[in-house]
C-alpha cells in the first residue's frame, strides 16, 4: 500500500509534514535528516529536489537549493540517499521539485527510480493540471505515486473540484497569496478561506502550507485541515548550524509541544 494512503487512512488530524532541501546543509545530511525527523515524530517528509530557478519558492528555500547544488547534489545521488533512508524508516516520502528536472532526467526513468527507492508522492508546482491529465497522470499512477496539487485563495471551486477528481494525493492548501518563507499570525481572512475549502466535501486529505512556522501556527492550521506543512522555518533552523540530528529532534519537539 502506498505509504501516504496508509498514513491518511490511519491519521486524519494533526499530520505534520516537514520539508527540507536534499543536500542541505551538507551533501550527505539527507539520510540523517529523514531518519531523525521520522524518529522525532514527523508524519510525512517532503524532500526538495534543489533547482537552479525555483519560481514558486521563497528566498530561504532558494538559498538552501543553491547551497545544495554547490555541495554537488544530483538526482542520482538523491535516489541513492532515499534508498539508504528506506532501510531505516517507512515514513511517507514526497519529492518536491520542478518539471524541468523530470524532463531532463527522463520522466519514465525518474518515476522508475521513485518506485524502486520508495518515494510515495510528488509535488511539482509548475506542472499544469492540463498537462498532468494529458501526459503524466497514467505514468505517475502506474509507478504507484500520488500527485499533490496546490490550491490558493484565488483558486476557483470548479478548479479545486477538477484537481480533486484528477488526483488521489493530498491537496496542498497554500495559506495565502504569497511565496514560501513568510511567517506571522493566521488572519481571519485565511480562516474563512480554510473553512470555505472544508465545506466542499472533498475526499482528498488536505494539508495547509506556506507561512506555518511554529507550534502556534501549526495548531491553528490543524484545526482547519488534516495537518500542515513546515518548510522555510525548518530550513532556517538547519542553517543555524549545530548537529543535524539534534536540530531535527528539537524542531519537531517544539512544533508538537
Amino acid at each position: 500500500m502506498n505509504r501516504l494512503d496508509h498514513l491518511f487512512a490511519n491519521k486524519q488530524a494533526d499530520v505534520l509534514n516537514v520539508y527540507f532541501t536534499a543536500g542541505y546543509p551538507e551533501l550527505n545530511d539527507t539520510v540523517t535528516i529523514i531518519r531523525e525527523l521520522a524518529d522525532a515524530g514527523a508524519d510525512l517528509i517532503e524532500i526538495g529536489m534543489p533547482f537552479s530557478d525555483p519560481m514558486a519558492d521563497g528566498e530561504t528555500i532558494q538559498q538552501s537549493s543553491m547551497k545544495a547544488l554547490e555541495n554537488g547534489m544530483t538526482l542520482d545521488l538523491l535516489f541513492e540517499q532515499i534508498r539508504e533512508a528506506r532501510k531505516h524508516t517507512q515514513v511517507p516520502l514526497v519529492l518536491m521539485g520542478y518539471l524541468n528536472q523530470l524532463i531532463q532526467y527522463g520522466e519514465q526513468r525518474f518515476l522508475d527510480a521513485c518506485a524502486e527507492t520508495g518515494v510515495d508522492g510528488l509535488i511539482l508546482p509548475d506542472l499544469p493540471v492540463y498537462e498532468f491529465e494529458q501526459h503524466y497522470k497514467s505514468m505517475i499512477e502506474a509507478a504507484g505515486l500520488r500527485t499533490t496539487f496546490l490550491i490558493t485563495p484565488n483558486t476557483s471551486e470548479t478548479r479545486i473540484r477538477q484537481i480533486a477528481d484528477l488526483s488521489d494525493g493530498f491537496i496542498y492548501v497554500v495559506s495565502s497569496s504569497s511565496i514560501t518563507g513568510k511567517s506571522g499570525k493566521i488572519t481571519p481572512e485565511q480562516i474563512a478561506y480554510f473553512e470555505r475549502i472544508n465545506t466542499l466535501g472533498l475526499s482528498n486529505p488536505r494539508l495547509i502550507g506556506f507561512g506555518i512556522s511554529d507550534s502556534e501556527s501549526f495548531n491553528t492550521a490543524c484545526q482547519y485541515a488534516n495537518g500542515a506543512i513546515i518548510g522555510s522555518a525548518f530550513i532556517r533552523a538547519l542553517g543555524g548550524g549545530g548537529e543535524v540530528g539534534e536540530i531535527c529532534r528539537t524542531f519537531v519537539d517544539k512544533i508538537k509541544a
Partner: protein
Amino acid sequence: MTKNIESEIAVDERGYYGKFGGAFIPEMLEGNIRELRESYLEISASPEFKKEFDALLKDYVGRPSPLYFAKRLSAHFGTNIYLKREDLNHTGAHKINNTIGQILVAQKLGKQRIIAETGAGQHGVATATVCALMGLKCIVYMGEVDIARQAPNVARMKMLGAEVRPATSGSKTLKDATNEAIRDWINNPDDTHYIIGSVVGPHPYPDMVARFQSVISEETKWQLQEQVGRDYPDAVIACVGGGSNAAGAYYHYLNDERVRLIAVEAAGLGVDSGESAATSVLGTEGIIHGSRTLLMQTEDGQIVEPYSISAGLDYPGIGPLHAHLIDSGRAEAISVTDEEALNAALFLSRTEGIIPALETAHAFAALNTMKYDKDDVLVVCLSGRGDKDLAAFTKYLNDLVTE
C-alpha cells in the same frame, strides 16, 4: 503567395507553437495568467485600444520607423541591404513597442503597479518610460551583475522615477531578475501587472509581445512595396536573445515561404567555449520561466548561466516561437561571437554612420557568413542604438590600437 497566418505558424489556444510554449506556472500565478489570457486578445482588438496604441506609436515613439537602404553597406556585401531603424524609436530600441501595448492592457485591467525584469536595461528603460507617461508605479528587477555593467540605463530608469531592485540570487543576471519579478507578482496578485520584455514566459506572453512587436514587419511590408515594388524581402535578419525584435520583424512573413528568416544568436567566446549563449545549438528541450522551449541546462536539468558580451542576448532560453521556427527548419540560426559582433558594430558605424547596440551588431555580423545573391533584398532589423555600449566599444577600440 502569402498564406493565412492563423492556419499556419501561429499559437494555439493553450499557447503552443508546435511542441513549444504552454504555461508551466505555479497555482499562485494561475489567477493573473488566466485574467491576462482571457482578456489580451479582446482588449488589444478593441477600437479604443487600437486608437490609443497607434497614436502613441506615431506621436510618442515616432513611428513608422524608417526603412533605410544602406547603400555603402550593400556595395560592400554586393547585395541590397535595408535597415529597419528601430534604433530611432523613443528610448532607442524596439522594446518600447511592447511596453506601450502592455501598459495600455494594464490600464484596462485596472492595475496600479508595474513590475518588469531587465538584462541590458533597454526593456527596463522602456517600461520606466511608459510608467512615467501613465503615472503608474514602476519597479524594475535587474541582476546585480547587470546593474554594474549597464550603469547608464540604471541611471535612466532612476531619472524616470522607477525603483531598480537588484536581483542578488543565483547568477545575478537576467534569468534571476526574471525569477524575482515572478516572485513579486506572486506576492502582489491584485494590483500589479508584470510587463515581460520578450517573447518568453508563460502563455499568453509570447503571443502578446509578438503581436505588439509585429508593427515592425507590418511597416516593412508597405515600405518595401514603396521602395522596391514588392512587399517582401528575400530574407529578414534579426538577433535573438529571448527574441522579441526577431518575432516582430518576422511576424507578417512567418508563413511566407519566399522569405528566409535568419535568427542570429550570441556565441559569446565561441559555441564550444563554455562561455556562450547560442541556445539553438547548446540548448535542449525543457521548461524555463513557464514555457516549454529550448534552453541551456545541465544533465540534471539545472539551468546554466549563459555568456555573451551583450547583456540583452545573455539569456539561457529562447522564445517558444523561435524554438519552433528553428526546430521545424523555418528559421536558420547563425551564431556570432563577441569579437565578430564588435567588429560588425565598428564596421556599421564607419560605413553608414550608425552605431548599433551590441545585440543588434550580432545581426550585422551574420552578413559575413550567410548566403545570398546579388539581386536579393535583405532586411536587417536594427533593433537598438549603441549609446549604452560605448564603454565596451571604447575598450575594443583601445585593444585594437594596442595590438
